[in-house]
């Protein structure tokens, strides 16, 4: 509760203040008691002193009177007169201050007795003495006087005795009161200390300890231990602090986990992107992406599928968390019947998820149930605007995939799409190049063909006709015959020239007879010996034969012209799916593709038919060309 701690502090402080205040209050009261007791004692003492002074007045009366009586001197009457005058007032005032009614009565009685003494005894005595009467000094008078004074004195004694009793009692009480006050003080002190100690203990437990724990936890959090938590036992704001710290710990932990997961994802994406950039084989990329997706998103199984033209879907790569477990099928076509990620994704051209295959129909759903799959999530692979395929991650657990899984898989599918687009581009490029080369070869073949069938035949026919005409000329017309003969020779020459040109355009034996006879012809016509080993029992596709022929032709030319070789070995082997061609010469080597355009042209020609060529030409060790050209599938 808000302000709960403040309220408690206020209440506790108030209580403490109250109790301590009460303690001081009690102490004040005790002080008051003491003061009162002390003043009572003082009062009693004053009473006693006043009584003494009163008695002194009486004594003054007596001595004054006696003195006058004895000496008859007026000066002895002075104290007597003074005392007599002062006495009534003094008695009254003493009585007023008396402690109790009894004492007051006593004082008043003393007053009366003294008044009576004065008026009944002392005044007449003084008058008598003044007159000079002898009775004034008589024993009787004196006796009476003494008797009265004794009575008065007795009263005074009783008054003083009582007053002393009262005084003693008050002294005792005073002491008791003081003792009590001391006890109260000590008790109050002890109690206050105790309370303050309790208060401090409470504060310490309720506030200081949690704060210290919080500081400790903050230190551990700063050190990287995000799993630390503190007990949430505090009240009010302290409890809020503890909860806040725990929440903070939780947040930090979640942040770190999220960051870690993000980093893993980026690493995976980077690995895949590297493969794509290196133009790795599509199979490798598919398998890598499927594995990365499966592992990153906590799936048990994952598969990448391609949509085929016949409406089925074909698995191209699969991954399983447990390699011993039953795997998803790869290379098997599934019709898109029933519930499946593949069907949904294709319909929507977007991501989809299936939370249960329990009551679903169709072969893909069946496979899912067999493998124990509970839920799946999938994302399309879009290449050039069309849905090329789909990648699906599946889980055997209850918990569904988090909501952002589809979006995160999409980052991977984009890379896959790029790879596929690249591969398709490369394939198109290669196909285009092959078409260009094939078209060029075809053109040359046709030109050679046309030359042969057309112009060549005409020239030959003309030659024959000319010879016919020559034969018709009578032998006498030597000049005419000579001329005709010359023309015939000219025609023959032209025919030979045309043959030469045709040979340069395209060797007729290659298209008429095939690679083997053509190579044999090349070998025979070569100025340096050529050892030919041909292991081919069949005609090969035309582009392959043309490429192989020109490789050998160019290689032989180089061997003669540049390598100054004395022998060339040509090995041709036709296997099931490719042709292997190897040309070795014993020349000077050092052939550099960068320098000889012939070699570059060779490479272009070989690669145009999807072949590979390796040139090995260490200086001084001859040159070896190793060529491999695929004969099926391209």
């Amino acid at each position, binding site marked *: 509760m808000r302000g709960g701690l403040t309220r408690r502090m206020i209440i506790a402080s108030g209580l403490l203040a109250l109790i301590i205040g009460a303690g001081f209050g009690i102490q004040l009261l005790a002080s008051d008691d003491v003061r009162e007791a002390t003043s009572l004692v003082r009062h009693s003492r004053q009473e006693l002193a006043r009584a003494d002074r009163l008695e002194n007045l009486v004594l003054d009366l007596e001595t004054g009177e006696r003195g006058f009586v004895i000496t008859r001197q007026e000066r002895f009457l002075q104290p007597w007169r003074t005392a007599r005058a002062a006495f009534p007032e003094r008695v009254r005032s003493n009585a007023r201050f008396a402690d109790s009614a009894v004492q007051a009565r006593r004082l008043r009685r003393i007053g009366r007795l003294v008044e009576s003494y004065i008026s009944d005894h002392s005044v007449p005595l003084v008058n008598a003495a003044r007159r000079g009467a002898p009775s004034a000094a008589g024993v009787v008078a004196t006796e009476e006087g003494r008797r009265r004074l004794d009575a008065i004195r007795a009263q005074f004694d009783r008054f003083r005795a009582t007053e002393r009793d009262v005084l003693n009692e008050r002294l005792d009480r005073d002491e008791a009161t003081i003792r009590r006050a001391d006890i109260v003080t000590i008790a109050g002190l002890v109690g206050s200390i105790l309370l303050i100690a309790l208060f401090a203990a409470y504060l310490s437990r309720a506030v200081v300890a949690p704060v210290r724990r919080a500081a400790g936890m903050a230190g551990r959090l700063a050190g990287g231990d995000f799993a630390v938590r503190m007990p949430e036992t505090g009240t009010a704001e302290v409890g809020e602090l503890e909860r806040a710290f725990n929440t903070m710990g939780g947040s930090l932990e979640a942040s770190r986990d999220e960051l870690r997961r993000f980093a893993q994802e980026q690493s995976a994406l980077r690995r895949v992107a590297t493969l794509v950039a290196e133009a790795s084989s599509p199979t490798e990329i598919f398998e890598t992406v499927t594995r990365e997706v499966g592992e990153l998103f906590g799936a048990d199984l994952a598969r990448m599928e391609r949509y085929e033209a016949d409406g089925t879907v074909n698995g191209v790569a699969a991954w399983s968390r447990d390699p011993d477990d039953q795997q998803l099928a790869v290379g098997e076509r599934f019709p898109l019947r029933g519930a499946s990620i593949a069907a949904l994704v294709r319909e929507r051209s977007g991501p989809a998820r299936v939370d249960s295959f329990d009551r679903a129909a169709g072969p893909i759903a069946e496979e899912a149930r067999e493998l124990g799959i509970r839920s799946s999530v999938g994302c399309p692979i879009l290449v050039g605007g069309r849905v090329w395929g789909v990648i699906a991650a599946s889980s055997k657990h209850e918990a569904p995939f988090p909501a952002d899984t589809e979006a995160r898989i999409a980052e991977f599918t984009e890379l896959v799409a790029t790879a596929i687009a690249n591969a398709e581009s490369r394939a198109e490029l290669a196909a285009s190049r092959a078409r260009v080369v094939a078209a060029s070869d075809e053109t040359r073949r046709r030109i050679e063909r046309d030359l042969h069938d057309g112009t060549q035949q005409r020239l030959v026919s003309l030659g*024959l006709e000319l010879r016919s005409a020559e034969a018709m000329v009578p032998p006498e017309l030597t000049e005419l015959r000579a001329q005709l003969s010359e023309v015939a020779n000219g025609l023959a020459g032209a025919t030979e020239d045309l043959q030469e040109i045709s040979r340069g355009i395209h060797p007729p*034996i290659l298209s*008429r007879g095939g690679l083997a*006879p053509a190579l*044999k*012809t090349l070998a025979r016509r070569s100025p340096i010996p050529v050892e030919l080993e041909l292991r081919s029992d069949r005609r090969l596709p035309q582009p392959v034969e043309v490429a192989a022929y020109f490789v050998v032709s160019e290689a032989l030319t180089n061997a003669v012209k540049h390598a100054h070789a004395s022998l060339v070995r040509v090995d041709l082997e036709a296997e099931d799916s490719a042709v292997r061609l190897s040309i070795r010469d014993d020349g000077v080597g050092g052939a550099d593709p960068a320098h000889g355009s012939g070699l570059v042209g060779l490479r272009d020609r070989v690669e145009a038919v999807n072949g590979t060529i390796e040139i090995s030409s260490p200086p001084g060790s001859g040159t070896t060309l190793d060529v491999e050209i695929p004969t099926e599938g391209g």
Partner: protein
Amino acid sequence: MRLRSLIVDDNGNFLAAARNLLEREGIEVVGGAATGAEALALAQELRPDVALVDIDLGDESGFDVAQRLVETLGAESVVLISSYAERDFADLIAASPAVGFLSKSDLSARNIYEVLGLTGAEGSTDPG
């Protein structure tokens, strides 16, 4: 007796010119065929002494036709001809059972006799 020849060539102009020349030089041209099938039929029917077979019969291979004619007429009766030089087809020519090769430009009665191993311009001798 004149030599009886069969020319197998898919080029009509050449056939005419060749026939003209050979007839003038004393070799009878009993027939001309443009395809292998025609050639075989004529060969069986007419039984020429020599068949001049163009290597290049358009879509057909003259070598194959020559092979079949050899089976019908005998190797010594089949001569390969072409407007290509011999060296352009040396291996195939050497591998063929035909008795020899003549360049079309060199077509003449004398050259034919030479290839066939016959002596004399117009005498008929059995190949011996």
